[in-house]
């Protein structure tokens, strides 16, 4: 297992090169990312794993143009995101990236259907009716479209968020612990849908998770420790992931 995987920026959907993110300054400065170089392949389902505080969310936020890195570069399909204006980043998020958060994914005053089409609305685009119908069917949201988030279960809310992330056909879907709040069955549903979107729709998915079972759905696992890349696992299964995590914990 290598500590530094070579950046596969050429064919990657999204990649980080020597990414550093420092929070605060002086004595209280925290190096949340400490020179991370990693690429995420097209039509690939990648899981990011690591202990709490290892910088997973920070990496994802930087990759998605939500946050700006202190140094280093982020490339989204060849476009450099670092140093771009807020306006450009906003457009990138709206048109090329989809999100699923751990919680608070939906606007409480909009219905499920309105929440799903929100990014397209913002971009002034019409949703692809076929894709929308497909997602609604696959996600089992047919009879919930006119409900508001407060009338949906946690799993249903997460599936609405997933539909929202997928319906705009973004280049990359980022999901930060999408199953963190769900029971194992709902979690499995969400993960299956993510994997199917990669298989059937050719979607690129990057997911942060703590759960080896969830990670086993991915094509590849990237391990983070103390803001650095700490290895990766191809074609992971539950056992290999658990082992890798145990190794990681033992090394500290």
């Amino acid at each position, binding site marked *: 297992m290598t500590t530094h995987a070579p950046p596969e920026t050429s064919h990657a959907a999204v990649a980080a090169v020597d990414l550093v993110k420092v929070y605060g300054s002086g004595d209280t400065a925290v190096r949340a990312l400490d020179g991370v170089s990693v690429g995420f392949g097209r039509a690939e389902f990648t899981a990011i794993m690591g202990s709490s505080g290892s910088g997973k969310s920070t990496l994802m936020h930087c990759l998605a143009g939500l946050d700006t890195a202190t140094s280093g570069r982020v490339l989204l399909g060849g476009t450099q995101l670092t140093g771009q204006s807020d306006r450009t980043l*906003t457009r990138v998020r709206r048109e090329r990236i989809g999100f699923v958060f751990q919680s608070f994914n939906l*606007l409480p005053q909009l219905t499920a259907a309105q929440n799903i089409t929100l990014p397209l609305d*913002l971009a002034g685009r019409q949703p692809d009716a076929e894709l929308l119908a497909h997602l609604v069917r696959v996600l089992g949201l047919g009879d919930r479209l006119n409900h508001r988030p407060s009338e949906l279960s946690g799993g249903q809310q997460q599936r609405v968020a997933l539909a929202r992330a997928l319906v705009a056909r973004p280049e990359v879907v980022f999901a930060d612990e999408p199953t963190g709040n769900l029971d194992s069955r709902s979690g499995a549903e969400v993960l299956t849908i993510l994997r199917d979107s990669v298989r059937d729709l050719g979607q690129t998915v990057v997911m942060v998770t703590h759960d080896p079972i969830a990670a086993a759905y991915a094509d590849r696992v990237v391990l983070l420790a103390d803001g650095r890349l700490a290895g990766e696992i191809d074609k992971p299964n539950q056992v290999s992931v658990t082992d890798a995590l145990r190794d990681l914990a033992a090394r500290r």
Partner: protein
Amino acid sequence: MRATVLRTQTTAAARRPGRLILTGLAILVASFVVFGTVLVQQITERTVRDNLSGTPAVTDLVIGSVDVQPPTVTDVRQVRAVPGVAEAVARVATGVSIGEGYLNLQSDPGTGPLTTVRVIEGSYPDQPGEIAITPRTAERLGLSVGTTTSGTGGELTTPAPLTVTGVVETSADAGYDAYAPDSAVIAWARLTTVERVDVRVAPGASTDAVRQRVTAAVAGQPIRSGAEVREAEAQAAAEQVGRLFILVGMFVSIAVVAAALVVTSTFRIVFAQRMRQLALLRAVGASRATLVGALTAEGALTGLVAGVVGVASALTLGYALPAILRATGHDVSSPGLPLAAAVAVVIGAVVITVLAVLAPALSAARVSPLEALRAASVTAGRRGIGVSRLVFGLLLAGGAVLAAVGTISQLPKPEQSDYDPSMPLLLLVGSGALAFFALVALGPLLVRPVLAVVGWPLRQLGPLGRMSVGGIGGTPRRAAAVSVVVALGVTLISGVVIGGASLQILTDREMALSAPSDFEVTSNGGTLPPAVVSRAEAADGALARVVPYRMVDDARLLRGADKLGDGESGYPTSDLDLAALPSTGDLDVAQGTLTDRGPGRIVLNSWVARDAGLRAGDTVTLAVATGTVDVRVAAVLPGDGPLHAGILADPGDLDRLGVPAAYTGLLADAAGAGEDGRTAGVRALRQAIGGSDGVGLAVLADERDRNDALVRTLVWVAVGLVSLTVLIAVVGVGSTTALSVVERVRESGLLRAIGLSRTGLRIMLTVESGLYGVIGAAIGLVLGIPYAWLAVETLGIEAPMTAPLLPLAGLFVVLVGLTALAGVLPARRASRVSPVVALGADN
């Protein structure tokens, strides 16, 4: 437990002092306004007192008062002879008719400490028949230093000469003021009594001793000290100020009610934000009562801080402003330090805040402990209202409708003379108050329908508009709470605007009748020499229009041989050409039309029509001593006729009646604008009149200006007072938007994360805040216009219903603009926050 809960709540408040201020902002403004009003009243009272131009300060004794027999001229002489009296000045005023017009001749020593005038040209008179006049009088009456005219006044009935020797400046210049020493006034006007005598005691002499000697000299005359008289004058002035401020107080209390409503809604938002935290406290064992107690304590703290800050800032401004004004040359006194009032305002702020916080605190404390376990994303505000609130609101609305129906049933019938507006007016005010509270109760139900209408154009504008409308529609309770306050402000202002417009129409109509032109030349019962009319007509450089007319006083209306009406004397009848004057050209009528005028037709004023029992279209015989003519009633006016004529007839008909062809008066307008044009007109007419006997000139335009200014002032004062409520409404919108921005920071983060631009977010939040204004203004206009109409009808002043569209539309736009503006800052702040931080914010 109790203390711990209290601590968690107060530390939460202390950790975010900005939020505390925002919550209490409306109360802060209300405290500021209330205490500011107290200070302004003091400033006004003191200024009025300090600048009182009544009795000069050096006056020691005042003899005579309005309640008893006035002092005689002999009394004056005797007082002067009393040892120790340095100066005794008789104060007296008498009306004087001179060829040029009317003069108010007042006595004043002209020099010395007791004088109230200052000579600026010529010299002060010292002989009977000499006068000094004010600058405006000189201009108006065409008098100047050296002019000699003649007049009558007081007991003087045969004209005696009056010579202008000087021009003086006084504190008030009405345009017909003349001054002379008391002896000169008394001698010229043959007066035997004066109004009072002001006495100055010689330096060194004892005032008490002089007072005793004066009392002996003028037995039976009341004697007061100068200080006493000044105090009484000040008291009278202060009383007037006090009465004015009672009115101000009413508007201020409406503003306070508005502030209480705003605070209630801001607390609702603040508590909703803390729902999870409160639920957590409940889950770990805090009782409902403990929560209510802690939340109320927070309210009291907020009220205390807001009250103290409000009072302190009012005090600062109350002292700074007069100082600044004084520095720029205005006579304005500083207020005192009304400590009791300050404490009362602060206590009031606390009490009102606690009352306002009670309802939201009770409903927040009802939170289920389970709420703590639910994700924050799902706690959207409740949408509907409870059954009890619905029933209560419907009862209030029913009461409002009933009271309004009661008002309508009591409206004056046409021609009703014994109408008493107090009862229907009371009903109307009651109805308005009920309607407003019904609005408060039912507001959340109204927001969505109103939004469906007013939000339609916005929704067409794209996703941002849709989201703004959705954002408001999704939280109807908050939207209602804010919009209702805006609605209150708009209702009041639209009422004032409509009332003002009606009043303006009423005074315009009144003025068209009593002052249809700038000038009037009258012959006082005789006829105008033809030369006067032709000279006036020739002066077209100074006069724009010259309209001569005839007026007969004793016209009667006959049907067959029977005289119509109960009047002993006849009706004043004129052949004034209405079309010749712009102000009378478009008079409104109660019946018939003015275009029907012409030979054989007459127009009646409402009183004559009623007295004679005639309607438009009736035929009748018009009769004077010299003849009769059959005419038809073309129109009936809603009130009096121009020049107070009862009947307006065609000149040809007057000829047929045998009325002499000589004119009895003429109306004229100045050719130029402003004071100069008016003065030129006066000069031209005075030249036209020349020395003609018994011919007088009146400047009607002055009266019209005074009236116009009065109406305008009234409307502006009312708008100013009502603006207090609007100010609080705008503050309410601002603080609500700011708070809801804080509350929805994660929402903003989410929107930014999925691709809403910074500008987009800013626009969305600003539009939302403007939408509060749109909803409020729409509701306010829907309520305000009918109520204003009803109020005008209720007053029974026969003013027409008007909807001054432009001002109302302007009001709407301004309010929407203001509320949108109130959202600009919070929206900016929200858009600056990075999406990651916003998403991570703990709510």
